[in-house]
């Protein structure tokens, strides 16, 4: 198997590692409020990038990154190039805004159809904003491809992919022919740090930009109008913080007091 052509789907999202207190919603607008939470490439998308990079380290090939959205922060999304991907294609347009899993997968499938062939599509197991975990499945169904999920290890062996798939209490080894979709989970391991050479090369590269018309898509098929799932409400549940802090002169004393408190409250 030479020259494995890999596609990695990435999404720019608000940093999911930001402290919960900095996260605010405007319920009336059904959107997040501007804050100092920085945009990043989604957590699981980074694992997907790492999966592709490891396969290329082992047997060679090309990595094309595909991302759908609008107003991409170039430095953020170009990290995918800085870590070593070869090309970046942005489906960037206001028309793509407010997509759901359906309109996202549909547009991505059209974009993939425009590429000169591919062998593997890597996706993160779910996005770090809507946590739907559906786009990988959507691509598999729309493109008629086999899919292996929750990959913690991916290798190319004898013309096929060998994937270690996470199962409850362990993993199983799955072999699948290409072309195929693979979704990646955190057990695969963190995305490598970009090295200076990669960062400089990425700075010089310009992403390819595709609009709905480039994909043969009508306005009604993409973004919000293309949704099959309607967002009715977006809100933060009210949480009444009422933690009773148990004290002590020392940590040990506090620990003993905690046991007494739980006994008093009939918790134990």
């Amino acid at each position, binding site marked *: 198997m030479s020259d494995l052509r890999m596609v990695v789907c990435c999404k720019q999202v608000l940093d999911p*590692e930001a402290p919960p207190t900095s996260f605010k919603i405007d319920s009336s607008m059904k959107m997040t409020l501007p804050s100092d939470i920085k945009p990043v490439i989604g957590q699981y998308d980074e694992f997907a990038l790492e999966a592709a990079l490891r396969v290329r380290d082992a047997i060679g090939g090309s990595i094309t990154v595909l991302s759908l959205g609008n107003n991409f922060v170039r430095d953020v999304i170009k990290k995918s190039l800085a870590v070593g991907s070869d090309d970046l294609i942005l489906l960037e347009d206001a028309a793509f805004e407010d997509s759901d899993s359906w309109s996202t997968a549909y547009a991505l499938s059209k974009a993939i159809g425009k590429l000169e062939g591919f062998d593997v599509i890597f996706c993160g197991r779910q996005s*770090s904003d809507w946590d739907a*975990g559906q786009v990988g499945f959507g691509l598999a*169904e729309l493109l008629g491809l086999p*899919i292996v999920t929750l990959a913690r290890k991916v290798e190319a062996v004898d013309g096929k992919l060998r994937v270690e798939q996470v199962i409850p209490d362990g993993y199983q080894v799955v072999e699948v022919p290409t072309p195929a979709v693979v979704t990646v989970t955190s057990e695969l391991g963190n995305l490598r740090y970009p090295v200076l050479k990669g960062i400089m090369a990425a700075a010089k590269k310009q992403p390819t930009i595709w609009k709905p018309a480039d994909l043969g898509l009508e306005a009604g098929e993409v973004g919000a109008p293309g949704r099959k799932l309607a967002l009715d409400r977006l809100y933060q549940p009210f949480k009444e913080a009422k933690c009773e802090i148990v004290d002590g002169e020392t940590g040990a*004393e506090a620990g003993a007091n905690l046991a007494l*408190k739980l006994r008093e*409250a009939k918790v*134990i």
Partner: protein
Amino acid sequence: MDENKGVLVYGEIVDGKLSSTTCELLGCGRRLAEQLGTGLACVVAGTGAEGAVEGVCSRGAGTAYVGSASDGIEALLAVAVAAVEAARPSIVLVPHAGFGRELGPRLAFRLGSAAATDCIDVKVDADSGRVILTKPVYGGNALADFAADTTPLVATVRPKAMSPEEPVAGTTCETVALSVETPAPAAKVLDRVEEKVEGIKLEDAATVVSGGRGTGGPDPFNTILKELAEVLHGAVGASRPPCDNGWAPESMHIGLTGKIVAPDLYIAVAISGASQHMAGCSGSKTMVAINKDEEANIFREATYGVVGRFEEVVPAFTAKLKELLAD
């Protein structure tokens, strides 16, 4: 397709019987069907399907569809499509666990319809009559209510989000056999490696002691935390960072992409309380937090807490508990 009515539950069979999540979905499905004025059906397939029919019928399903199929996802998905064609439901409920997380979305895409995953509530809006699906988003920092006009709407439902339906003895229902042809799946399982966890299952434990990033390494999971869990006859869990770092096995991972637990007592040790973790344990009846950082988010979630170093707090806590429980 306006003539689609009815609620269809895709049942999950674990150890030869209906999973507890399926029983929860049957309860949810029965309530939905009542509110929508329609019927409830359930489809089961794979190993143990025939034997699960009684459990389905005794929990309020009017029709049980039994798919003669192997256990692979492609076969189960083909059965799901056949069941939808036979039952013509307006909503399909699938457990958000095991194969369900894959079957739900793939079924929706295959049928050209919509799915919402990891739903914690499914209800009928009194005004519009539409089914509203509620699910956590932004890693659990917010909730979203979704609705759809396409049919059938597919919802994968989080385990333990609903209460299970108790069986009523002596009820029968119509049983329909579905025979589907599935092409041989492209993916082949070559090997399976299961790390059997000894002791009580995390999801079933009445008490869970969990360690977070602040534990700093694998030792506490084998010593301090294990001893505390033993005294309380509970199980040991972990947030994601210890698992990602290899300090604890992935089977201990509690969180949005790990196990969902709802024990009577959840003790979070050196856990910051990030939303992704809270998604896995927020159903706990009583939460206790031990963390050296008084600003940690966990103190906004817990009922009782100690601000201090777990190495000092937990051994003394364990010793006192041992004393009290010996009475």
